């Protein structure tokens, strides 16, 4: 038993922190989030060069072949910096779906280009029903000569406006279960009939889109992996992304706690630092408990997935559920303890609070994952 990070992982954390401290200041974040790109080409090239985009891809696919525990280290640092742009969409959704479901040929076609920063991707699965289980995939892919025709609308798609390719989940047959009959397609964003519109979401650092498919024709070769059998791969993508987001939430929450403690030491009322009052001190203590427990569950979940442990799905839902609640509570408490200044646009807290809110509801919120925990422990 050794529940800590390796020297290599600590080095990765160190390098990431130094790089992000230098290049991804909150000034940079604010400038970038005001633009549709939320990122600069130089920054994207730099993170590609450091191997972040292909961190979980196999080496033969142009990646670093590292595991989820390594990714967790990186995500904590990205959360701390509230890093803007389509990293989640490209590496952890679109890219991860191709890695999870794609044939060797398909992986070769896309993953090396994603890893080197030449191609951006995303995953379009969620629909107006906002469900995270298989019954949420309603959109149809109609077989037609030489391929399929996609019609329908996907919502809450991260950074689709920046993507070059979109992995789309659609129903290809009515199977015996909801899980059966879901297929994944790789569709170029410039396909005829495909249109993207930004949804005005509160977290401007990571934008959400509506993606419309009006009789979009795709060839047979666009089917990712096996026809009708896309759902299990999608679950693997969601589970890993949920853990990655949980880690990012831990990093963000830790930063909010640090900012709050710093402020509580300096800010005085009635002649004393506010941190000396138990009303403030005890709230800070509770924030630390939330952050530490969220980290614990996240690390365990990452390890469980890397090891293929039998309880990995349970561990994932425990982590995402806890982190979703914890990051909301911590960012809200951070604002509360800062008082009025915490409510202003000028202060950085809202960047974290908005990211926390967006992550809280992505890939299943706390309630959704608690129900999954219940069904697993009650089985």
């Amino acid at each position, binding site marked *: *038993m050794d529940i800590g990070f390796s020297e290599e992982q600590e080095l990765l954390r160190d390098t990431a922190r130094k790089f992000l401290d230098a290049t991804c200041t909150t000034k940079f974040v604010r400038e970038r989030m005001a633009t549709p790109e939320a990122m600069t080409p130089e920054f994207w090239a730099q993170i590609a060069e450091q191997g972040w985009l292909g961190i979980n891809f196999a080496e033969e696919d142009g990646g670093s072949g590292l595991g989820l525990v390594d990714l967790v280290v990186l995500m904590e640092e990205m959360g701390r910096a509230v890093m803007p742009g389509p990293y989640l969409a490209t590496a952890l959704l679109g890219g991860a779906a191709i890695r999870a479901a794609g044939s060797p040929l398909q992986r070769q076609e896309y993953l090396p280009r994603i890893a080197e920063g030449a191609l951006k991707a995303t995953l379009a699965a969620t629909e107006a029903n906002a469900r995270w289980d298989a019954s949420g995939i309603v959109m149809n892919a109609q077989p037609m000569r030489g391929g399929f025709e996609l019609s329908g609308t996907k919502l809450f798609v991260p950074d689709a406006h920046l993507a070059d390719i979109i992995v789309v989940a659609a129903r290809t047959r009515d199977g015996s279960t909801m899980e059966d009959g879901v297929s994944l397609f790789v569709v170029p964003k410039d396909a005829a009939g495909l249109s993207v519109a930004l949804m005005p979401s509160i977290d401007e650092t990571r934008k959400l889109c509506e993606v419309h498919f009006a009789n979009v024709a795709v060839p047979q070769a666009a089917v990712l992996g096996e026809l009708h059998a896309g759902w299990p791969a999608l679950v693997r993508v969601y589970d890993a992304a949920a853990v990655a987001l949980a880690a990012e939430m831990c990093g963000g929450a830790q930063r909010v706690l640090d900012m709050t403690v710093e402020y509580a*030491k300096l800010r005085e009322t009635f002649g004393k*630092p506010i941190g000396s009052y138990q009303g403030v001190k005890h709230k800070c*203590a509770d924030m630390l408990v939330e952050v530490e427990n969220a980290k614990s569950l996240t690390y365990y979940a990452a390890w469980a997935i890397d090891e293929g442990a039998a309880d990995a799905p349970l561990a994932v839902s425990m982590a995402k559920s806890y982190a979703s609640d914890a990051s909301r509570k911590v960012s809200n408490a951070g604002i509360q303890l800062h008082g009025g200044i915490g409510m202003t646009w000028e202060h950085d807290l809202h960047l974290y609070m908005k990211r926390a809110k967006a992550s809280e509801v992505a890939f299943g919120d706390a309630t959704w994952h*608690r129900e999954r925990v219940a069904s697993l422990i009650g089985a």
Partner: protein
Amino acid sequence: MDFADAPEHAEFRREFRAWLEANLTDDLKVEDAQDSRVAPDRETLEKRVAWQKKMHAAGWVGISWPKEYGGRGASFIQQVIFDEEYFRAHAPILPGASAIGLLGPTLIQLGTEAQKQRHLPRILSGDERWCQGFSEPGAGGDLASLRTRAVDGGDHFVVNGQKVWTSGAHFADWCFLLVRTDPDAPKHHGITYLLVDMKTPGVTVRPLVLLNGHRHFNEVFFEDVAVPKENVVGKINEGWKVAITTLMFERGGAGGRDHVAQIARLVELAKQFPNRQEPSWDQTHVRQLLAQLMIDAQALKVTRLRGLTRRLRGEPPGPEGSILKLFGSELAQRIADASSTLLGPYATIDGATEAVPDAGRWAHRVLGARQYSIAGGTSEIQRNIIGERVLGLPKG
């Protein structure tokens, strides 16, 4: 990062588990060892003393003590595995637990050779039992403000005063006691650490029965109690340092409590028990409640393991200690309270019923759980410790 046992640790786990399976008889087993840390009656005590002797004969008592003092020199990780297996097997807390875990290691570190020779073998064998005389009516969270007085009587001290919350004093042969020997010194100085024979004239033990009827704690009164000076641990007036050593063993305890079994039992009850005309388990709020408890129990477990890793790596202790105490005690209370949500009026029945065979146990937990956030430093004090020592916030 690796949550699995290394091969040699897995072997140690197998060995101890097999020994427990072969030797721990059903009449000794308890559903949750924390329900009664002190034996509820003398008959149970005698059985548990015999059990300690059996364990001792096989070399399973005080395993982390050095070999020269009768231990195995077990590593910290072995102690963790030992605790996990011990509670997993539903074994009861040993009558000698506080001496094995707290006093023994303190004497090994700071006791005289004569003290070690006299006491250590009897602690391990269970022949003598100890109680911890620290808390006083006016000195709980602020322990150093204790007022039990010891006056120099030449070759001995004369002790007068009162201790409270003394676990198991009614079964104890000896007491490790903090007294004030210099009332004029600043409060952390002028304290002395004594070993007191409970049979000394002037020692009176009075039960302090808890609101659930449990006899666990006592008040202990000292009236002109003579304690020989060879029973001072460490130096006179420097007992606070010794006390800190003992307290560090208390807070650094290896094996934490695992709440998973209790929650799993609640899930079982929820499935079987038709509260409000349908199995509770079919109700969303019950599923959400029990899932959250299980998530919190797992979080606590992993947070504890992360702290152990720090210790194993020789790093300074992290924030885990107070987090575990704060979060763990409140979790135990929430588990107890959840039983009322599930069982409805059965949760108020202090005994077995046909519908809920373990109703009485839950009723006791509902009542007894209140102590968790008080004993060993209240939750308010834990939040102060986290705020000040971990986060570095200024004192009030």
